[in-house]
């Protein structure tokens, strides 16, 4: 532009070139992350076509060549998926466990946070909080050993006690009866501390004078909790609740794979979509059905998140994701 119109001051051109330089430099900062996203997140999205193909190995046996040469089969993979009896079980398990986790995670964590905030000794409250939060930082592999210490068929505490008291010894890793409770318990063990800490942080942020004013007006402790604490936690509860509803089709792989020690006899109560996708591909090499299940999970999950976010935006526009 400066060439065409000589009256434009030189400062302007140097400004625009420095602006371009700035954009370039800032862009170069984002480049490593962007490259990672493109290679590890966006490139696999093209693999979605696997769900609609009969994936086989061709010559030369490279991924792209196989994908291109494999035959389109339309929705056949999905049809097979829905014919399989496993599918109903894994969808049921994923949904039911998540519903229980969401409800307990909300009620128990809020209750614990309120209890912690009402304790007179700050030191003891802090100690409880610290210990409750600890399992959140351990892996499911470690957790599976913790459980094994109690349930191990030969040396575990519980089979041993059953033996001593003359009861029938349960083979815990083959008997499905108690596993729904064990799974829920394990999830509480690992994650309640985390949500409790979040709610406790929100309670700590509530203006103390509100409670004092309520007390002066003769509100009982219970009324203060109902009319001061809970309304102040509402936004946080809604966000966490709806975000977890958005992830209702996703399961924690480690919880359902490691904690039951990958035991085949427990599949009816521990198989979830994530473990199915893994097993169908890694153990049976079934690319089509595992991709179909994975895609189904991603699409439904995507819709859930969009819907959840829409609801959040209606309730509280500031806390919506996008």
């Amino acid at each position: 532009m400066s060439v065409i119109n000589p009256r434009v001051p030189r400062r302007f051109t140097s400004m625009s070139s420095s602006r371009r330089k700035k954009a370039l430099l800032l862009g170069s900062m984002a480049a490593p992350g962007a490259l990672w996203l493109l290679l590890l997140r966006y490139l696999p999205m093209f693999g979605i076509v696997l769900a609609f193909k009969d994936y086989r190995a061709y010559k030369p046996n490279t991924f792209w060549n196989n994908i291109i040469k494999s035959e389109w089969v339309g929705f056949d993979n999905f049809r097979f998926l829905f014919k399989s009896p496993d599918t109903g079980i894994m969808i049921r398990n994923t949904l039911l466990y998540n519903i229980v986790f969401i409800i307990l995670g909300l009620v128990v964590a809020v209750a614990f946070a309120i209890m912690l905030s009402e304790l007179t000794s700050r030191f003891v409250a802090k100690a409880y909080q610290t210990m409750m939060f600890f399992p959140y930082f351990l892996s499911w592999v470690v957790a599976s050993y913790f459980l094994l210490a109690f349930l191990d068929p030969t040396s575990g505490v519980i089979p041993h006690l059953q033996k001593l008291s003359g009861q029938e010894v349960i083979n815990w890793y083959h008997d499905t009866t108690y596993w729904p409770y064990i799974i829920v318990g394990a999830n509480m063990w690992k994650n309640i501390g985390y949500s409790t800490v979040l709610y406790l942080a929100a309670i700590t942020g509530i203006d103390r004078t509100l409670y004092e004013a309520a007390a002066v007006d003769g509100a009982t402790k219970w009324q203060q909790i109902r009319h001061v604490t809970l309304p102040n936690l509402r936004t946080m509860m809604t966000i966490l609740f709806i975000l977890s509803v958005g992830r209702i089709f996703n399961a924690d792989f480690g919880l359902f794979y490691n904690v039951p020690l990958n035991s085949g006899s427990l599949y009816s109560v521990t198989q979830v979509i994530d473990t199915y996708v893994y097993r169908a591909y890694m153990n049976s090499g079934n690319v089509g059905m595992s991709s179909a299940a994975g895609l189904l999970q991603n699409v439904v999950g995507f819709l859930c998140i969009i819907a959840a976010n829409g609801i959040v935006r209606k309730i509280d526009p500031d806390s919506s994701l996008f």
Partner: protein
Amino acid sequence: MLSARTGSQRRSRRLNAVSLPVETLFHVILGLFTLFCIVPFLFVIIISFTAEDAIREFGYSFLPQIWSVEAYQYVFQLGDALWRSYFNSFYITIVGTVLSVLITLLYAYPLFRKDFRQRQFFNILSFFTMIFGGGLVPTYIICKNVLGLSENYAALIVPMLFSPFNVIIMRTFLQTSVPTELIEAATIDGSGEYNTLFKIVMPIVKPGVATIALLNALAYWNEWFLALLYIRQNTDIIPLQYLLMKMQRNADFLAKNSHLLGTEAANVAVNLPSQTLKMALVVFIVVPIACAYPFFQRFVVAGLTIGSVKG
């Protein structure tokens, strides 16, 4: 003066507090749950200090008949595989944490700069992957066959280098602690973009960097899924978490099938690392976390609170 104030504070707390029986009930409930959270770890420590013979006879016990450090002696005698995997865990954690913090900071900083015109593009590029993905199978095939993430350290580090969630946490830290004027002033004083980031901005957002570093270090330390996916033969590079997982499987397999495999395999099963040894390894994994925990808890709480509210 000070004691008088805390005294009156305590009295005012007491005034508007729950009644003593209710508070006792709270202590019982919270105490029981706390025990539920912490006892399994203490139990595993106790088992690791129990004599193997006592376990064979009485099973695991909170009050072992015979205490012993034989499991730890065994760990120290037992050579390579264990120490190698322990080293791998540290190596993966350190390299992964340094690289991922760097990438996260570098990605979050331009997103925080309002005068960066392409920020919206990079924002969406990162955010979209939070709500949609290719799924396990396509990701696995691409990583393994196209990107060569197989049987090498990169396979255990690269897939976790970047997380949109951490970018949001980092960006929020930047937004709340770095004033725009500071960056404008630095630019006018002739500071280059990289210089501004590392010399001026970084010292201010140290708490944010610490938070991201801790979250990533924990994620890498606890990682076993990537090893399960990408490491089939090269057992020299597996982390301790995955070694423990494999030991569980192998021992189970041998214990269940020893009668089918004959005496030779049964002998192998007996010579496999003992029960106390495995528990000792669990202690080895958890102790670094337990030791660092009191120091990092504060940072992680800050980070997660920000991430959950703004995320």
